[in-house]
C-alpha cells in the first residue's frame, strides 16, 4: 500500500504544515506570549488529528464535483484549512448574534 495514494496522508501534511507555522510564530520573540503558545499547541493537534480525518472524509465528494482536480492538492488544502483554531469564530458568533438575542428577550 502506498501512503501517497491516501488523501489522509496529504491532509496530515497540510495540517502539520499550518500547525508548525503557528508554533514557530507563537514561540518567536517578537510575537509570542504564553496564551498564544497554548493555542498554537492546540492548533498543532487539530492539524495532526483533524487534518487527515477531514481530508479523508471530504476529498472524494469534491473530486466527484470537479474531477479535473488532483486528489493530493485538494487533500492538502483541506488539511491546511482544518488546522485553524475555530474557537474564536464560535466566540464571535456568540458575542455578535446569540448574546444580543438573549439580551433583547429579557
Amino acid at each position, binding site marked *: 500500500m502506498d501512503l*501517497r495514494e491516501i488523501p489522509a496522508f496529504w491532509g496530515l*501534511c497540510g495540517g*502539520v*504544515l*499550518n500547525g*508548525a*507555522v*503557528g*508554533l*514557530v*510564530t507563537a*514561540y*518567536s*520573540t*517578537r*510575537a*509570542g*506570549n*504564553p*496564551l*498564544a*503558545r497554548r*493555542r498554537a499547541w492546540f492548533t498543532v493537534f487539530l492539524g495532526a488529528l483533524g487534518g487527515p480525518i477531514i481530508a479523508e472524509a471530504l476529498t472524494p465528494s469534491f473530486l466527484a464535483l*470537479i474531477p*479535473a*482536480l*488532483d486528489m*493530493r*492538492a485538494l487533500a*492538502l*488544502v483541506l488539511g*491546511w*484549512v482544518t488546522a*485553524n*483554531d475555530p474557537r*474564536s469564530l464560535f*466566540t*464571535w458568533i456568540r458575542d455578535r448574534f446569540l448574546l444580543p438575542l438573549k439580551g433583547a428577550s429579557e
Partner: protein
Amino acid sequence: MTWAHLTVIATGLLYVGASMALGVVVRLLGPTYHTKVTAPLWIVVFFALAAVSLLWRGVTLLFPGELVDTDRISLVAPLTAVVVVGLCLFVLDYVMGDRSPPPLFNQWFSWALKRRVTEDGIVHAAFALPPAMHEAAPCGAQINRTGRGLRLAVLSGGAATILIVLGVIAVNATG
C-alpha cells in the same frame, strides 16, 4: 527532471511560502493573540482569503491535475512568485510592528476602559497609533518566563517539520 519542471516546483513552493507568511498575519491580527490588539473582522477575513488563495495557487502548480497547464509556464514565473513572497513578508513585518502600540499607551488604554470607552473604540485608537519599535515591544518580560532552551527547541523543531513537509511535497510534485 528538466528546467521547466524545476521552474514549476520552485514557483509552487514560493507561493506556498507566501501563503504561510499571510497565515501568520491572520494569526497576529485575529483574536488568537487577544492580549494584544485585534484587528477589525473584515481585515482578518481578507487576509485569510488571500492566504488560502495563494496556497491554492501554489498547490495546484505542484499537483496540477488537469485544471492547470504547467507545460508552457513562463521562465519568469518564479520572479513573480518572489515578488509576491517579498510583499507578503513586508506586510508581515509591518503587522508585527503594528500589533504593539507604543508602551506608554497601554496605560492609557486600561484607564480609558474604566471610563466606559467601548472595546471597538480602543481597537480603532490602537490601530490609528504609529507602531512601536520592535525592540521596544513590551512582551519581553513574558517571554523570559519560558526557558530559552525549550523555546529554541520548539522553534527548531517547528522549522524542521516545515522543511520536511515541504520536501515531501516537492519530491512528489508532478508539475
